[in-house]
């Protein structure tokens, strides 16, 4: 494997995780839309909302990861994609804003009517966003993005049959994954009625997504034949077969109520599709631009790889902790009396004498900071100065606040 391809692998992994995890969130919005307004749809809408609450923000950072690694490691390709496909990207951006805003606003709704309105905007943007992002992927795959600053047509580049079809497929897949994940959650929390409803939706969505995938192949056959032939040969074909098997397998697992396994097979189906796309397209990144040509200079690639691996060492354990807490039901909604307060009594926060000492230290730090940052000229003096001034803020705070709070007892 060449160095220039490694960041692309990271980008694809990020894309898979985004498609699965954020896809499940988008799909939850889709089911909220279908559940309808008012009291009738309220249980599913509430449930879909709460199930994604603790993981919502983290799931969407994968998109930021994909964007930043792409523009660092393949800057010219990023510039070409973003300028030619500015319309669907902007629509996705607005969709993300409206989704996020309504998601946050829901916490403040007091009546069913208010909730209906907020949920409607949320659900519509949950369908619009994956559709728009799907057309971006479709336009790249159908070689509609030439290199250069807005060199492709900003409308026809993504409104061909293949991009639109991929957009539809993205929505269908999100709905399928979401139904599987939500059914799994309902099963885990023992909400059997909801589980049955969601299971029915998952089975139906699975059939629809499968049909959409077949229809997609037919469209690609007619609209972008080169893509069709490459998808159905070599490694790409193997990936497509894996995806089809995993998709069908998920359906069987849901039918058998083996939801936990179904989560993973659904993810596998998405991962295999993205892998198949990458294999079908290599070594080209865009029309007339190979991955190697698009890659950033050597030093940058090395640092990106180091940064992503290093970041991953912190990220994945943190993410594992979050998902373990969520899947273990530790962060579920619902009311529980909070754990007893720690044993400490109404202890003094800090002794008064130490507050006086802290105030003197803070004063000394302020003078030092003024002398070394403002009067002195040398760089090293400035470094001392800024540290002293930040120290003044922290020490000053601890000199003042605890004493003040103690007085107001």
């Amino acid at each position: 494997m060449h160095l220039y391809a490694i960041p692309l692998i990271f980008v694809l992994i990020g894309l898979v995780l985004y498609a699965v995890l954020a896809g499940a969130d988008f799909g939850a919005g889709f089911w909220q839309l279908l559940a309808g307004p008012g009291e009738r749809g309220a249980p599913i809408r509430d449930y879909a909302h709460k199930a994604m609450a603790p993981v919502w923000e983290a799931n969407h950072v994968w998109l930021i990861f994909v964007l930043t690694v792409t523009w660092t490691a393949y800057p010219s390709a990023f510039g070409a994609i973003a300028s030619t496909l500015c319309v669907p990207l902007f629509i996705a951006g607005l969709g993300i804003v409206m989704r996020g805003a309504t998601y946050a606003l829901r916490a403040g709704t007091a009546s069913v009517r208010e909730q209906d309105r907020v949920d409607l905007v949320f659900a519509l943007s949950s369908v619009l966003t994956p559709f728009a992002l799907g057309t971006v992927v479709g336009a790249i795959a159908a070689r509609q993005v030439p290199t250069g600053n807005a060199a492709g047509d900003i409308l026809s580049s993504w409104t061909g049959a293949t991009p639109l079809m991929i957009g539809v497929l993205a929505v269908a897949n999100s709905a399928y994954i979401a139904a599987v994940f939500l059914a799994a959650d309902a099963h885990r929390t023992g909400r059997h009625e909801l589980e049955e409803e969601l299971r029915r939706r998952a089975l139906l969505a699975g059939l629809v997504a499968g049909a959409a995938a077949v229809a997609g192949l037919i469209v690609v056959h007619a609209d972008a034949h080169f893509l069709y032939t490459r998808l159905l040969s070599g490694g790409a074909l193997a990936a497509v077969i894996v995806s089809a098997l995993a998709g069908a397998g998920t359906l069987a697992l849901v039918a058998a109520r083996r939801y936990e396994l179904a989560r993973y097979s659904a993810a596998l189906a998405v991962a295999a599709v993205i892998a198949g796309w990458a294999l079908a397209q290599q070594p080209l990144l865009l029309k007339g631009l190979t991955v190697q040509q698009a890659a950033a200079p050597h030093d940058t690639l090395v640092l990106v790889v180091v940064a992503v691996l290093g970041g991953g060492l912190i990220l994945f354990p943190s993410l594992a902790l979050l998902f373990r807490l969520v899947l273990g039901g530790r962060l579920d909604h619902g009311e529980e009396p909070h754990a007893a307060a720690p044993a400490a009594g109404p202890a003094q926060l800090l002794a008064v004498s130490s507050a006086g000492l802290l105030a003197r230290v803070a004063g000394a730090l302020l003078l030092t900071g003024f002398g070394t940052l403002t009067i002195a000229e040398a760089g090293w003096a400035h470094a001392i100065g800024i540290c002293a001034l930040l120290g003044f803020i922290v020490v000053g705070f601890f000199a003042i606040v605890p004493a003040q709070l103690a007085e107001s007892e």
Partner: protein
Amino acid sequence: MGAAHQAYLLEARQMQALSFAVHIPLVCFGIAFPAMVLFCEWLYLRTGDELYRTLARRWTRIMAALFAVGVITGTILSFEMGLLWPNFTATFGGVFGLGFAIEGFSFFLEAIFIGIYVYGWNRLSPRAHFWSGVPIVIAGMTGSLMVIAVNAWMNHPGGFRMVHGHAVDVHPLKALFANSFLWPELSHMYIAGYMVTGFLVAGAYAIGKLRGKGRPPTRYERVALAIPLTIAALASPVQVLVGDWVGRDVAEAQPVKLAALEGLAHTTRGAPEHLLGWYENEKVKYGIEIPKLLSLLAYHDPDATVQGLDTVPKDRQPPINVVRFAFQAMVGIGTALALLGVWLLFVRVRFGRLPRSPWFYRAVALAGPGALVALIAGWVTTEVGRQPWVVYHVMLTSEAVTGAGGIVVGYTALALVYLGVACGVVWILRRLARSELREPDPPATASAA
């Protein structure tokens, strides 16, 4: 990738400015609010006093709502790097992009631990819950470090050479972190984060106090006011010193920006400073002139020579009055906030209490919006002051912009959506401030202790 002709460059810049102006106040809350919430929770862990826990929980809800809005406005900014400035990203992504890639991880950690922290109240042990908040504070620091590293690089670029429109000899670590602009700018922004958050939160409680008309505030209200107010009062005098430090760096590396801030048309020995006034026909009209002050402030020497605007052609100068007004607004408000801080610290040290004058609390209520205006004005100063360059003396903003049409449509759509988001945020903050925490509040005996 090549420059493109763009008739709507100004609209593209305004759209970017709007996106920043909406995002940056939320960044301040991302930087400073988690630390304040954690401090409250730490007080609770030390004393077992339920009052601190109630306060921390209430603030947590506000923190969560603002963080969610910060996530989406931040996402829009990363889209705009490509949508508006594709040639900037295509040419220099390999140089500065690493900063954003690392920032992405900070953002990730923030999102993960905010999820755990917000939903972990009542669910995790008190100690585990407290520690789940610490990564949020640290990620807020590293995230702002990375973003400021990129901005400092745009103002003071290094770590590459340009050959035929391509960046070669690229050393991203040198570009991002071996930059004399980074540390002053980072300190300035980080302290600004504490000032904006501190004064806005304190201002909300100060308004409540003023509306109470002489009713003695409850202990809860006193605590909720004292914590943010003290932080902001300590930070604002320090900010004056840090701002002066930033100014001396600008004088050295971006003399034309300094000349624009001060409206200095010609290179002058022993240059004067003008307060207020209007720049026209190469001089400041109606301003208050203080002889030699500019030389003294910029170079610590009243007779130092300060470079004037006439050292570069007109089309390489930023719009003078915009930059000058933004700068004077920032310095003026910043100085007033520092005086407010000194007032508080003086009364505190001399009399051992908070000031009692209602004028003090009126000033605190104004200080929140004031700090916000100073923050935005500061960013206008540095960003508009860098114009017409996107990468100082390397790439013009007009070379960076997209060749795609429809900027006006996008700008309008974004403005409308952001207006809706702003209304929504105001609405939910009012709701959250009024509504009860779902868990029954602690019994009265606990808070009377």
